[in-house]
């Protein structure tokens, strides 16, 4: 156990973390019982460590140590900082939904501008009724901790047949230093919907904070959903996020994750293809420097026949940073004609940079086409020399090659504006580097 613990006389540990926060956690008495149970699960397991196979490369006990106390409500000055940060990171034309330190901030959000087919509630509101959204089947300690501590989140539902012209951007802003925020959101995408959801994680003056986010997504039959996550938390922050995605039939789901911030981060996505004829494109880029640790873990579960999944992942790792990609493709016995491919490549910019690629295929059907590939290497010296011989200074030559390298993942984003936005984030990361 690495959380702050008070040992009582009887030997039963009661954590300060939960005890001090419990009074501030929203929900009915029934919800409180669910939270307490979830916290007990977390307490029993403790923070994940390297002897737990799924967390082998991301030992949170060693990397994080303890979970910080729950953030207090932001004051006026913090809200002002948050508003500024939101302005900087907002995508033009997007409908913003803002969470400040894990709590929905209506004043900073475009609630009224949401399309009529979109209904919005907060997690807080749903917890007045029941604890349904706090329940997940997972046995992961960080997810149990999230259920115990989740203060708020957005609960979005997009009606069948809706074609949203503007993206919805959920922006998580951190204003509180040395504190934790816990958010849990739900996205229900109706049948035949066309929509783009962007999630951004940013800091507004906060330092050394921790984020634990969970998102539960269901995608209805025939929907076409782009889901883009941009994690640019403060360089000394921790971000652990879990996605649970259930995909219906004949869906096109295009997921993209970008990691450019946080000292320690992990995105773990559990994507279940539960309806036939769906196509999943799940891609990501980790841009890491200094001593950053970034982990992208994707579990794609082909539960039914005739689905296609493609994963393209790129990591650029400088200094003593450490990137982890774990990609598991599960093909259930019934999931014949599954076509699943995954390719991960890491670019090491320093001798001390580290990449761990762990592809796994678990195939229980006999008529499938699955494959994976993984590479790790340095920038090609012959390409660098060619560019320098044409007048590009070293750093600029490197930047051009790095952009090309990550471009292979970024180009999977279909929307021109969003793709340019993501390229811009990569360019700014490269400028920070030089």
């Amino acid at each position: 156990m690495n959380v702050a613990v008070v040992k009582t006389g009887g030997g039963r540990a009661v954590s300060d973390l939960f005890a001090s926060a419990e009074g501030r956690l929203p929900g009915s008495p029934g919800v409180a019982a669910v939270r307490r149970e979830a916290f007990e699960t977390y307490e029993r397991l403790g923070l994940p460590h390297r002897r737990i196979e799924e967390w082998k490369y991301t030992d949170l006990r060693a990397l994080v140590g303890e979970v910080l106390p729950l953030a207090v409500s932001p004051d006026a000055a913090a809200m002002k900082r948050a508003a500024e940060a939101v302005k900087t990171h907002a995508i033009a034309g997007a409908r913003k939904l803002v969470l400040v330190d894990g709590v929905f901030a209506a004043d900073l959000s475009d609630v009224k501008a949401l399309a009529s087919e979109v209904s919005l509630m907060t997690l807080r509101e749903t917890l007045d009724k029941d604890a349904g959204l706090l329940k997940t089947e997972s046995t992961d300690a960080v997810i149990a901790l999230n259920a115990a501590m989740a203060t708020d989140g957005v609960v979005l539902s997009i009606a069948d047949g809706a074609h949203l012209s503007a993206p919805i951007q959920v922006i998580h802003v951190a204003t509180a230093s040395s504190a934790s925020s816990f958010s849990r959101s739900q996205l229900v995408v109706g049948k035949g919907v066309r929509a783009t959801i962007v999630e951004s994680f940013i800091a507004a003056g906060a330092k050394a904070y921790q984020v634990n986010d969970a998102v539960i997504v269901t995608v209805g039959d025939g929907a076409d959903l782009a889901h883009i996550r941009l994690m640019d938390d403060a360089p000394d922050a921790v971000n652990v996020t879990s996605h649970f995605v259930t995909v219906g039939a004949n869906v096109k789901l295009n997921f993209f994750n970008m990691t450019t911030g946080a000292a320690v981060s992990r995105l773990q996505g559990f994507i279940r293809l539960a309806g036939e004829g769906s196509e999943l494109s799940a891609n990501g880029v980790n841009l890491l420097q200094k001593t950053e640790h970034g982990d992208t873990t994707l579990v794609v579960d082909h539960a039914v026949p005739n689905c296609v999944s493609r994963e393209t992942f790129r990591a650029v790792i400088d200094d003593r940073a450490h990137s982890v990609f774990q990609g598991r493709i599960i093909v259930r016995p019934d999931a014949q004609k599954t076509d699943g491919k995954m390719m991960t490549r890491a670019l090491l910019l320093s001798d001390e940079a580290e990449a761990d690629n762990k592809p796994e295929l678990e195939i229980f059907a006999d008529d499938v086409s699955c494959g994976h590939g993984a590479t790790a290497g340095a920038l090609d010296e012959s390409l660098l020399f060619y560019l320098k011989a044409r007048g590009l200074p070293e750093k600029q030559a490197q930047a051009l090659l790095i952009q090309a390298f990550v471009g292979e993942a970024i180009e999977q984003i279909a929307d021109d504006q969003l793709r340019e936005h993501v390229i811009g984030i990569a360019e700014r990361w490269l400028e920070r580097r030089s």
Partner: protein
Amino acid sequence: MALLEVKDLKVRVEEREILHGLTLTVNEGEVHAIMGPNGSGKSTLSHVIAGKPGYEVTDGQILFRGEDLLEMSPDERAAKGVFLAFQYPVEIPGVTTMNFLRTALNAQRKARGESELMVPDFLKKVREVSKSLNIPQDMLKRGVNVGFSGGEKKRNEVLQMALFEPSLCILDEMDSGLDIDALRIAADGVNALRSPKRAMVVITHYQRLLNYIVPDVVHVMSKGRVVKSGGKDLALELEASGYAQFEDAA
């Protein structure tokens, strides 16, 4: 002042000396051919002039308009007007030729303290030059040299030469891997760039290329030195008699 002066240049690769005291002077407006058998050090010379890593200069000098080229990084040399047309141009997936050309040209201009070229002017120039070199526009939208034929890659080198307007062009085995038609197109492109302000050093194993790019001066290299220099007829003489005589002499 000579444009390029190589003085008594000695170069090692790892522990082996490749150039044993090479001297060469090239003036503005001149086209020099450097011929020689495989392993005579021709490509090493071109790489050292361009600043490729992995070569150790143990003695001698390379002056470019009187400035010490060896003190400059490869990009500084490029900005000063040194251009190496590669024997094997590399493929750069994910970087479009157009983006590459603009980035490189503007980097050179910036290093010289010049303003960036405006996009319309740049595009106009690229279109003109690529048309004259028979380079289709859609090739410019693809990754640099990705999927290009040998001839297309060499034409892409000539395209860059035309855009960057260097004062010294070193053509390293431009004829390698080209059929006669591809060679003619590339050579025509090079000839169009001959000017009283620009010098060229054409490195080749075969005399054939020199039928298309006719040199003012021909040098024969053998075993890391220039062993004979003469007019363009020297190339024909070599074609008839071969390199053996020089290998013995060196």
